[in-house]
C-alpha cells in the first residue's frame, strides 16, 4: 500500500519528433547496454535527468536530491521498424517498484517516464529499459540523496 502513496507516478509519454533528438552520447558505467542488430530497434539515448527542455533531457546525472521532487528517464530510439512498445522498470535496491509501458512509433521516437520523489525513496536506484519482449536494452543507475 505504501507504493501507491510513495509513487505518485507521473508519466509523460512524449511523442518527440526524431529530428529534435540531438543527444547520441556513448553509454557509461551507469548506462549498461546490449548490442542490437542495425535492422532492429535501436536505443540511441537513455539518461536519467531532472527535466526536459525543448524536448531534450536537462541536467542528466547519477545523483539526484530528493528535494528535486521528481526524476525522469528519457529514452530515444532509431530504426523503429514498426510500432512497438518498450518498458521502463524502476527498481530500488533490486526490488521492482514500478513498470511503465511506453509506445514507440516509426521511424524514430523518444519516450519519457518519471517518478515523484519522497523521503523514503532515498537510496540506490536503477531503471531497466526493456523491449516489448522483455529483452534488456539498457540499465541506468543513479542514486536519490538528501
Amino acid at each position, binding site marked *: 500500500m505504501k507504493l501507491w502513496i510513495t509513487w505518485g507516478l507521473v508519466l509523460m509519454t512524449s511523442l518527440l519528433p526524431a529530428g529534435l533528438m540531438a543527444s547520441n552520447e556513448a553509454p557509461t558505467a551507469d548506462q549498461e547496454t546490449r548490442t542490437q542488430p542495425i535492422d532492429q530497434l535501436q536505443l540511441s539515448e537513455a539518461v536519467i535527468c531532472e527535466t526536459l527542455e525543448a524536448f531534450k533531457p536537462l*541536467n542528466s*546525472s*547519477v545523483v539526484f536530491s530528493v528535494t528535486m521532487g521528481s526524476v525522469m528517464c528519457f529514452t530515444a530510439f532509431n530504426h523503429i521498424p514498426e510500432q512497438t512498445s518498450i518498458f521502463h522498470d524502476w527498481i530500488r535496491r*533490486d526490488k521492482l517498484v514500478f513498470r511503465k509501458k511506453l509506445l514507440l512509433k516509426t521511424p524514430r521516437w523518444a519516450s519519457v517516464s518519471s517518478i515523484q520523489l519522497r523521503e523514503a525513496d532515498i537510496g*540506490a536506484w536503477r531503471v531497466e529499459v526493456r523491449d516489448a519482449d522483455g529483452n534488456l536494452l539498457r540499465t541506468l*543507475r543513479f*542514486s536519490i540523496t*538528501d
Partner: protein
Amino acid sequence: MPLFIEKLLAVIRWQDVLDILLNSYILFRLYIILRGTRLFIIVVIIFLLLIIQQIIATSSMILTHAVLQGIAALTAIGVLIVFRYEIRGIFQTKNLKDLLWHVSTKPVITPVEIIAGSVYHLARKKIGALIVLPGRQPVDAALQNSVSWNGQVSREMIESIFWPGNPVHDGAAVIQGDQINRVAAILPLTERTNLPMRFGTRHRAAIGLTERSDALVLIVSEERGEVTIAHMGHIETVKNASSLETRLRQHTGMFGASPQRTSNERRSAAFAFLLSLIVVSSVWYSYSLGFVRGLTTVEVPIEYVKRDSQMEIIESSSTSVRIQLSGSLQLISRLDPNQIKVRFDLSKAVAGRNSITITEDNIILPPGASLKKVEPSSINIMVDTLGQKRLPVQVDWTGVLPPGILVQDIQLDPAAVEVIGGQLLLTEMDTIYTAKVPVDGLKQSGNLRAALALVPASLRLAPGQETSIRINFKVRPRQLVVSP
C-alpha cells in the same frame, strides 16, 4: 538389568559413593551413641518429619510444607533445650574414640555380687541405703547437692557410706561401672499419691528418679530391713541376694555369656550400619534421581549436522531454543548447559525453505533429565546451495551535493565483481552495492575508492576479487531550469 540400576550406574560418581558412605557412618554413629535413650526416638521423629516435609514439598502443598518446616525447626530447638543434660552427658561420658569408633557399650564390668552382698548386709543390720545404677541415660541432671566420690566399689566402701555416722549417709550413692561416682545425692521425689503408706521418702525419691530416667535404684529400708528395687517408675521387693544379682545383671547388660554377647553386639552393629546405608542411599537416590525434582530452563544453540558442503543456511528463524528440563535437584543444580545439545540432521534438507519440527530425537539431554518444554517448537531455515555470479557494481551515493553541481558521469573499476553465495540468493540479486559514498565534497572531477557492501553476510567475494572499487567521476555545473 532394572532401569533404575542402569540410571544409577550412568550417573553415580566416586564422590557420590563417598557421600553415601560418609553419611551412612554418621547416621550409624548417631544410632550407636543415642540408642536406648529418649533422645533417639526424638531424633527419629525429626528425621521422619524432614522426609515427610520433602515429600510434601514435591506435592506443591505450600502451607503444609511451611508448617512442617516450622514444626521440625521447633522440635530441633526443643530437643536442644529439653535434652540438654542428656546431650551434655553423652559428650561428658564418652571420649572422641567412643564417639567415632567404639560399638560396645559395656567395657567396664559392674561388680553386681559385691553390690548385692553389701545391700543385703545393710538390710540385715537395718541400715537405710539408696543406690543408683544409671542405665543408658545420664542422671546428672536429676541429682541435687551430690558429693563427688570416685571410689572403687567394695563391700566396705558401700557399708561405710551408709553407716549412720557418716555425713554423706543420708543421700543416694551413684554407681557407674565399678566406680562409686557420687554420694549424698538428693533425688527428685515422685508426685504419685497412690503409693502404699509403708513407702517413705527414700522410696519416693527412688521412684521419682526412675520416672525421669532408665536408672535402677536399690532401696534398703531401715525400718523393715527389706530390699526393694525401683525401675521405670515401678517398685518391687527383692527377696534374696541371688535374685538381686540377676536383676542387676539384666540392668547392667552383663547377663549371659560374654562372647555370645559380643557376637550379638557386632551383628547388631553390622545390621545397624546396613540399615544406615540403605536409608542414606534411599535419601541420596531420592535427591539425585528420585522424587525430589527441580526445573530449569536453558538456552541452547542449534547445531546442524550432516550438511552438504555445498549447502549453506542463509536464513534461520532462530539460532537457539529454550529448553525446560526437569530432573533431580542434584542434577539440576550441577547442570552444565554444554551437556545439552540440539541437533538437526540436514542430510535430507532441500534447497529452499525447510520447516523442522523439534522432537525429543533432536535433543540430547544428560542422563536423568527429562524434557518438559521446548520453545520454539519448530524452526524454519532457508537452505541454499552455493553458487557464483558476476554482479555489476552500483555506487550507493549519500549526502547532499554542493549547490549547482551535477555528477554527470562515473566509471567504475571494476564495473562488476564475482560473488559467491546461495543460488537462491544470487538469483534474486542483480547488483552489488558499495558502502555509502558521500557526495558532499564532490566539487570537481576526480576519483575515490569505495568498499563493497556484502549484504547479506552469507555473501562473499570470489577469490581474487578486491573488496573495494575505484570510482572515477566527472562533475559539471548544473543548468538552470527555466520554468515554462
